[in-house]
């Protein structure tokens, strides 16, 4: 079976999963939640198979590289990591609520990758600068970080939504009673950010090592490098204000959202600035 066909089905499956998570939130019936999780797992497995097929396909075409080499492939992989990390958290915390906010981001990434007119889904050959073993470790760690920050962003949104409705007080009834309590959200935001921070740090470092071998300098102030450092610093500021100044709750949520904005700019916005990371320009 063709991997692009599987991927377009997966896009649809993630959308259906999101709708079911929404059903669960509105009706409060766990049946919908279980169905949503099932779809998300099915989508993840199908997507994994599609990625492996694409990988194999690139060998058949005589290029032979991991499917992480252009904007299309990175978008698909981004969606994959978001769902993976989300499902792990769902399994660990036994809470399905974040799905409503996180699964649609994965869906949007998949949809954008296949619909956007300037993104080609063709398997393209690797230019010499990308022919390196560091490609996989750099891209995988960066996107794990991005995905963890996405989860933090989703939790931050829920926090602000709940906060707006109730002004920071827990109420036993109403829509927001179906959302997780403030402490859980705060812990989730913090934990996903620490995870993302470690991955982003390793991602920047593997990138530096690679740049050291490919370009002759571990740091070139290329806009993508600079923006990854900006993102890193924003999350560092967040962690310091939490540890030392004791910031919690709403402030963390707002910083998690600002941080995610930086992640998106590092990933996509930077492509409109001139620089060395031009492989992602579609």
């Amino acid at each position, binding site marked *: 079976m063709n991997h692009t066909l599987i991927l377009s089905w997966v896009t649809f499956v993630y959308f259906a999963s999101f709708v079911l998570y929404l059903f669960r939130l509105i009706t409060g019936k766990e049946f919908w939640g279980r169905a949503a999780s099932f779809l998300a797992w099915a989508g993840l497995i199908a997507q994994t198979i599609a990625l492996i097929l694409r990988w194999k396909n690139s060998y058949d075409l005589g290029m032979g590289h991991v499917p992480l080499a252009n904007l299309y492939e990175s978008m698909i992989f981004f969606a994959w990591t978001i769902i993976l990390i989300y499902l792990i958290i769902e399994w660990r915390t036994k809470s399905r609520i974040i799905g409503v906010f996180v699964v649609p981001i994965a869906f949007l990434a998949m949809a954008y990758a296949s619909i956007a007119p300037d993104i080609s889904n063709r398997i393209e050959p690797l230019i010499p600068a990308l022919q390196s073993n560091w490609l996989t470790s750099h891209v995988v760690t960066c996107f794990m970080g991005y995905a963890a920050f996405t989860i933090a962003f989703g939790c931050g949104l829920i926090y602000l939504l709940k906060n707006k409705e109730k002004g920071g007080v827990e109420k036993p009834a109403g829509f927001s009673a179906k959302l997780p309590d403030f402490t859980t959200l705060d812990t989730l935001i913090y934990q996903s950010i620490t995870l993302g921070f470690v991955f982003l740090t390793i991602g920047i470092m593997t990138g530096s090592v690679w740049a050291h071998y490919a370009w002759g300098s571990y740091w070139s102030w290329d806009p993508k490098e600079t923006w990854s450092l900006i993102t890193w610093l924003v999350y*560092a500021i967040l962690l310091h204000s939490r540890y030392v100044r004791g910031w919690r709750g709403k402030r963390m949520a707002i910083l998690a959202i600002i941080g995610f904005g930086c992640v998106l700019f590092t990933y996509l916005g930077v492509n409109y600035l001139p620089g060395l990371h031009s492989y992602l320009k579609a």
Partner: protein
Amino acid sequence: MPIEKHALWSFFSSVKLTITLLVLVVLLFITGTFIPSPDVVQTFANHLSPGAGKVFLFFCLSDLYHSSLFYILLALLSLNLIICSINRFPALWRQYNAPHFPEPDGIFDNLPQGRIITVDKEIGKIKPIVKSSLKKYYGHIGEIEEKRGHFFYAQRGRFSLFGVYIIHLSVLIMIAGAIIGSVFGLEADINIKEGESVNVANMTKGNRLYNLDFSIRCDKFTVEFYKDGTPKTYRSDLSFIKNGQVRRQATLLVNHPLTFEGFRFYQSTYGIAPEIKAIITYTNAGENGGEMTLAAGDTFFLPQSRARGFVLRVEENIMQIGPAIKLRIVSQKKDVQFWVFQHLDQIVAVNPDLLTKMPMFNPGLFQPFVFSLNRLEQTYFTGLHLVCDPGIPLVALGGLLMVAGLIIVFFIQYQRLWVFIKQEDSKISIRMAGRSNRNNQQLKKKIDYLCKRINEEIKA
């Protein structure tokens, strides 16, 4: 201590300053990425007012990442980091060496149900069970007998208290490495044509030349393309020559740098040299004279007639009739100039009396030699980037330390646990409570688990 010094010290030991400085650095970076190019900014500033132009020039604001403004921020940040670390160290040291007993005040008050185990066995049997259960998960176990009862203490991950110090030290080490690199390092570019050797490099900074004490020869340059025309690989076969001897021969590829005499060489680019090479053969009264590869300006020698040849011109397409070269041959008797066309046969087929009308187009004008042009070849040049950066070991060390520090801070926690075993009338109560430096959730789970285990083992 004078009061001013004290104020300055406390100013630099505040985390508010750290956060402010980090925010300023972030804003500087954001501005930096949106600045189109250094020249444009400087022109714009000069346009604004001559004063602004001077300010921009003084702080090098047109290149923010190398501006004095950025360096000042970095220096303040480093100072802040060092002073914060020194300031907090005594408290941390006390925390590290905190005595295990007595336990923190009120730690055994108001414990939830699961944390108190009541049994009616002998205290002598219970103690080893508790101790062995604790030993499974905690490295350090302490014990004390008091009037109130028997106490156990367990801890693990105490060194994680220093994780933050490791991270901050790693930042300082990386900054130091970067400074060493920018002060003592060198970056330059060299373009070498195939077959030539070069011992001078263009420094990336400041448009100066750098003389190497060895030379690099490009023996061969190869480039391969994919079907769609994007380059697949390009490689240079290089020889490093010192004092007239080839010291090293190696192939340089993108992503695979070479090292020679403390310099690292990178395959950074390639291109086509402006000159074209001509592959020429000649016959001497019917006998083959061999093949020569020549460019415009080259000379060659014809031993058979003691004549010297000059390549005057090499043309890719002259008068729309294809490639040609113009030669001049000088011997003791003659001095002739003529053209050699690659496609002479076709030209003669169209104009049969060309060679008699135009002797200049006769490749056999210098008798008895007849020249022919086999083909023209483009000459590639390979673009090498060379770097010497003595700061790299420090930066790498800093990077490793940072990852280690982050893992210690985020994923290892300092857990302390107290167990209080008390004889209450005929029964014995076991109470368990703990403290951790962060993430109490994990500690709670651990205590619940331990209580359950100990309870089960005592019953068994």
